[in-house]
């Protein structure tokens, strides 16, 4: 589903990703952990080309994102993204946030888009907030709407960039619950997270990224219980 070959990314002189090669399969949930500044968010953002790739290849669903001939907008409709800061559209009601892209990008009728949006809101437990504006919602509710908004495009893959890092602790659970449900339904997911409990419980595989490389990868069991790399051990001893 996702193939990454020797992915490198530099900002000027500073090399953030130093050659990442990996493959993520359909229906797989991958959690990416690592210290801040390690390049894990940059890695995720390269997967839908929110960051320009310096060199290497990112292939999603057979589309090579680094090929200039690829219609990136088309590929992005298959890749949902959830941001740390939610990034709901503040001038639109909750339901309009969800229907905007289906109507304008997928050219779905408004009626159909709204029907679908209400189903998704129901799924994330926020049906009654359809007519609210984002600013009326709590952080956890905003993030659940953001997930519904991404799902409205019926993506094949969902990318989560530290989806609970900006939340008050009591709201983390409700967002993780939605993500867990999504994982159980078989969605392919790549989650950059500091929630080790979630990674351990939900992930099929865990990547430990540090200094721009995947230093270690394996099942949660392998990575959390018997990490091989010294830096993984140091990191885990600090966060667990």
């Amino acid at each position: 589903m996702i193939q990454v070959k020797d992915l490198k990314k530099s900002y000027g002189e500073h090399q953030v990703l130093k050659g990442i090669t990996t493959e993520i399969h359909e229906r797989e949930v991958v959690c990416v952990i690592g210290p801040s500044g390690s390049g894990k968010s940059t890695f995720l953002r390269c997967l839908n080309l929110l960051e320009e790739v310096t060199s290497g290849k990112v292939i999603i669903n057979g589309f090579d994102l680094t090929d200039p001939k690829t219609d990136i907008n088309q590929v992005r409709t298959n890749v949902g993204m959830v941001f740390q800061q939610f990034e709901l559209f503040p001038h639109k009601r909750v339901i309009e946030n969800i229907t905007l892209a289906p109507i304008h990008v997928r050219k779905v009728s408004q009626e159909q888009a709204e029907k679908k949006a209400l189903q998704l809101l129901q799924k994330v437990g926020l049906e009654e907030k359809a007519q609210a504006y984002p600013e009326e919602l709590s952080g956890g509710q905003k993030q659940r709407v953001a997930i519904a908004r991404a799902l409205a495009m019926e993506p094949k893959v969902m990318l989560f960039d530290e989806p609970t890092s900006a939340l008050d602790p009591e709201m983390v659970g409700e967002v993780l619950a939605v993500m867990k449900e999504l994982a159980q339904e078989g969605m392919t997911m790549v989650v950059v997270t500091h929630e080790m409990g979630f990674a351990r419980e939900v992930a099929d595989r865990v990547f430990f990224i540090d200094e721009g490389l995947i230093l270690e990868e394996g099942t949660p069991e392998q990575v959390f219980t018997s990490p091989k790399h010294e830096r993984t051990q140091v990191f885990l001893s600090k966060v667990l």
Partner: protein
Amino acid sequence: MSIDWSVVIEYKDFFIRGFITTIELTIVGIGFGLLIGLILGLMQISGKAYLKIPARIYVDLFRGTPLLLQVLAIHFAVIPTICEEILQITPPSALFSGFVALSLNAGAYISEIFRGGIESIEKGQMEAARSLGMNYAQAMRLVILPQAFKRMLPPLGNEFIALLKDSSLVTVIAVNDITYAAFTTAKSTFERMGPYITAAVMYLIITLILSRVVFYLEKHFTPQTRKK
């Protein structure tokens, strides 16, 4: 001191025409100013040097020289040169020169307001829109500009009022606006106060209406919940 208002009544057609002309200058200036401003603003944030640099030069040129000079230069130099030497036609009226000068000048200021407004929207909004598959134009139109527009309204309101008052400068090329009516009436009747007070009141009426319109728009573009 007594003020003789009879000259104003005597010259009332002159003032009415001035009033209409000033409104025309303001509306045309706002309309074309917005259009030029939007284009220049988008050029400036495009990140492409061949768009950015010309826009930057334009803005610096029109903001860095006096409007009075621009009005004179456009009416007596630029338009006559283009019309006579290139198009080989008779130059249009002074009013046309006034329209051109005010629109070009307003465009420079408005482009800065557009640029500032667009740049004030968090980068994540564009990323969120793009991640949903929208192209750059859709993201701008559906997500960025509606939010930016709300933030641009107060400075745009100031700009519109400044434009209205600056329109009085076309008096120097003998466009019959409010100021021209007052100046000419006062000069030819030797009645000093009446004409100028009349002109001031006319400007005040338009400025007050304009600021009410901007205020209404600001309220209109604020989501319901924030109106409470």
